[in-house]
């Protein structure tokens, strides 16, 4: 029983409506009203964008009305394209070419930063992705810790990597990085330090594989006795 070809994943234009998605959207619209800004379906996953002011309320709706007891993750997206100095001129073929314009994904975005989370239901086997906009600074948003205790670490990581502040979080401190670390690494304007410290050397001359050119015997160090 291979994957059914009837629902072609690329055909986002006319997907077969999923009754679970309809039910979830209905409940969310009912509870959030105008705060439900946009929704979309991306490859069997319902993506919903809510207003930042009702971020925690959306979590409560998801937990109570949509039966989503399982917190999968909370993270953020920085939609700004990474700066592209030098990747064309330097002939750096190691890294993919970065996009030039800021475009947004499923369910749109109002600015550069978005916080997104995925919650699921262990009993009903459905889930959804929630997104909210936090603008360009990014601005603060309510914490999910009172709703899902596991949000503690996810929000710490989000703050550490993107700089999004979560109000009412018990202790917003560094998770992965040392306490003195400055900057928020996952932002697009934070360079990949590995390439800054040591630029990609490009293709280097390598020795021919065995069977090609024979290696010079002089290359082998003399006096290689095995010491037992």
């Amino acid at each position, binding site marked *: *029983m*291979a*994957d059914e070809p009837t629902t*072609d*994943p*690329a055909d986002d234009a006319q997907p077969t409506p999923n009754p679970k998605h309809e039910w979830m959207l209905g409940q969310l619209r009912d509870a959030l009203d105008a705060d439900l800004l946009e929704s979309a379906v*991306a*490859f*069997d*996953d319902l*993506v919903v964008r809510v207003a930042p002011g009702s971020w925690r309320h959306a979590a409560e709706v998801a937990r109570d009305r949509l039966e989503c*007891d*399982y*917190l*999968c*993750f909370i*993270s953020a*997206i*920085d939609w700004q394209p*990474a700066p592209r100095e030098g990747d064309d001129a330097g002939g750096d073929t*190691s*890294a*993919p*070419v*970065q*996009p030039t314009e800021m*475009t947004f*994904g*499923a369910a749109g975005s109002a600015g550069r930063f978005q916080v*997104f989370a*995925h919650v699921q239901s*262990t*009993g009903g*086997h459905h889930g959804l*992705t929630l997104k909210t906009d936090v603008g360009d600074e990014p601005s603060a948003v309510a914490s999910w810790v009172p709703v*899902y*205790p*596991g949000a*503690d*670490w*996810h929000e710490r990581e989000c703050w550490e*990597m993107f700089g999004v502040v979560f109000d009412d979080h*018990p*202790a917003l*401190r*560094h*998770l*992965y*990085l040392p*306490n003195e670390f400055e900057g928020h*690494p*996952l932002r*697009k304007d*934070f360079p*990949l330090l*590995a*390439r800054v410290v040591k630029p990609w050397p490009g293709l280097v001359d390598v020795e021919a594989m065995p069977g090609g050119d024979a290696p010079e015997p002089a290359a082998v160090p003399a006096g290689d006795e095995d010491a037992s």
Partner: protein
Amino acid sequence: MSTTDTPATGFAVDRSALHHLADAQVNVELDTGDMILNLGPQHPATHGTLRIVVRLDGERVVTADPIIGYMHRGYEKLTEFRTYPQVTTLINRIDWLSSFANEVPFMDAAERLMSIEAPPRAKYIRTILTELSRIATFLLFLGEMAAQVGALTPVFYGFRDREYVLNLIEAATGGRFHPNFNRIGGLKDDLPWGWIAECRSTMKVVLNACDDFEDLVLGNEIFEARTRGIGIIPDHVGPSYGVSGSNLRASGVDWDLRRDGPPYLAYPDLDFKVWTHPDGDSYSRYWVRLQETREAARMVLQCLDGIPSGPVMAKVPRIIKVPEGEIWVETENPLGQMGYYVISKGGTGPFRVKIRSASFSNVSILPWLLRGVYVPDVITILASLYFILGDIDR
């Protein structure tokens, strides 16, 4: 048993070092009778560089604060500067004990974004190799949790039997630990001659090993005394922390992404049982993983019986360019639920990859779980949760 002297006077505590904790829970002012102990980052029980700062009252834990990040490699940043095939090499090393299983969801994501499908034979072989990685990592767990509890011998049996499975993986892919065998659209190569017969006999060895572990470890009264009732995760607390996989099934939650999630690989064709245990303690976590090892061996045998013939690689362009889109893919990895949220802007590399790793959430429950337990029980609980540092830190 606790001393009445403040330990801070007996040992010259380096207070400047303590300030680095910057910790809301663990304060620098030591109460009389409480002792702060650092479990890690170098410690045999923490499976790698995990550090837990526990505050002890005698032998009881008052608060526990795990400090992670000693192995943080910045994968999510790195993926933004790598092409899709290059990302495969990176994500292999997230959960290094079952590395084949890490690649599967990402391959799935890339393939679905490109609207290509791996051929059925490739799916079956991927399933077999995923289940083999599951067996490999669980055999290590079965031995090593016994070692944490004090029994020195089952570790060697676990490693010995794991060698057979690793030899199989190496015969098929060329690598024991980081096979790097997946390609977008299928696999690098087909299976070698005689591999299927060898795999069948190895599964018999694995099933025998599971029986041995059941008698030797699960049947041991001292093991039971050390693990029953220890570290109970109730079934309403686990999901709210994101605990997944065998840990959640050991609390009685009947949820397995191979059966309940969107269909992936060859799992829709297989007939397998999802094992749960109502207790939610360390014993049940060991028990569930033991049963799942057996189940994985049976699944491999089923796959071997039903493996279709055909190509192992779909037609893909030479330079992989993935069209614009967003996708969330999750799979049932040995450690729990692993998922990738891939955002693509149409280039040769992803725009943003959010890696949802299982151990991160499994370990986040430790501050709640470790309150009030004895120090030896901390070790038992850590062993039974079974996390891999690479999975926590990415």
